[in-house]
């Protein structure tokens, strides 16, 4: 089986790898590149634990052949923040108690990021709709939505953050 040479940008860094035709992106990330932040749940597109960003959009890495990311940009949870400097969404998830077992969290964070990148001030309904492909068996979603809303509200144009600033 001939290997395929691919080049893609992973968490801001250009990577060149050789992949088997039937290698899935999730396995490239976890097994080959050691990025185990991305989780495997159902393996069939139903749970969202494997969510990564492909050219800025949230996708299921369990359904993508690795060969298909040639020339693309991929972001995993490792590219979101670091231990020293967490991403505002990560800060908010912790502050709001939106993490319990944590299995859904990497995917949930990336779905949230892909929403806020195109819609800085989503409604609660828009948030719920955008994380509909990410299952969480622990939190009941309310705290996750609270956390995402908190980051959206930290955006300077948002009415609730203006109120907070004026009250200060």
């Amino acid at each position, binding site marked *: *089986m*001939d290997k*395929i040479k691919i080049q893609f940008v992973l968490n801001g860094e250009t990577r060149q790898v050789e992949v*088997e*035709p*039937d290698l*899935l992106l999730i396995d490239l990330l976890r097994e080959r590149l050691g990025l185990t932040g991305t989780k495997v749940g159902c*393996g*069939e*597109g*139903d749970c*969202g634990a494997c*969510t990564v960003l*492909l050219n800025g*959009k*949230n*996708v*299921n890495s369990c*359904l*993508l*052949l690795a*060969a*298909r990311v*040639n020339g693309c940009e991929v972001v995993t949870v490792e590219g979101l923040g670091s231990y020293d400097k967490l991403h505002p969404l990560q800060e908010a998830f912790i502050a709001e108690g939106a993490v319990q077992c944590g299995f859904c969290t990497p995917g949930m964070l990336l*779905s949230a990021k*892909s929403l806020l990148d195109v819609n800085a001030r989503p409604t609660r309904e828009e948030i719920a*709709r*955008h994380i*509909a*492909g*990410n299952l969480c068996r622990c939190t009941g979603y309310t705290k996750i939505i609270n956390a995402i809303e908190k980051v959206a509200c930290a955006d300077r144009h948002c009415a609730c953050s203006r109120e907070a600033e004026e009250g200060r």
Partner: protein
Amino acid sequence: MPFVYHAPRTLENLFATLDSLEQYSLLAGGTDLIVKWKEKLIDPKAVVDINGIAAMKGIEECPHCFSIGALVTHYEITASARLRAAATALYEAAGEVGSPQIRHIATIGGNIVNASPAADTAPALLALNAEAEIQSRTGISAILVADLFTGTGRTCLKPGQIISRIKVPASGQNQGSAFVKFGKRKALAIAVVNGAAWITIDGDKIKDVRLAMGAVAPTPIRLLAIEDWLRGQTLAASTFKTAGTMAEKLVRPISDIRSSAEYRGDLARQVVIRALETAARRAKGGCACG
């Protein structure tokens, strides 16, 4: 078994590749194909990734219609203000597929060719009278999407043929369309019943109408007998209710894991009533999207 991977970048190269292969699977978004491969329902010797082919991409406007590339994702459809206004049922159906993750990679072409009786864009395309452009090395022909399906999971496409684009007539004055889906939950649920209506009104009368439904037969179907009855009827709640009752009797729904036959019949009635009501409201409102 592993497969060989090809990623042609032009239609010409695609057809040359297909010619050279004994057996292959085309890969668009892969949300049906990869799942089937993982479940060992298929074992392709070769996978031909068509995602690099520009001629199969993009939403173009032609006079009174849209030409939608087979590789256009459900997400792209939901992001099109023009489709929302003038092909509303398709816009709504694409927004009901799977989850954001699925909509970002799954394509309209894949949704059709996979030929699931419950495919969400299918009833919308049937109601809108959409045509699929079938392309092969020897040329291009057009076929109504309704005539593409030959059975559950089967189409009339022959080896070496692909769907390159889908042509959807644009709704104009006095016209409107709507899509309705009943699933077990709002996201990530295959339809128990789905359906779509397209309507042209003349004052308070129905001038023309098309109705389609999914998950009630081996393929998505047009409800031609009900359409015939509806033409010339007055726009009224009682008209839509009668059409709904006819739908319940007409479709011989199956009992399966997602619902009993009786419940499906009830849903079929509701799908027809709601789709007709909404399409008629849009036709009256001037703005197709209201």
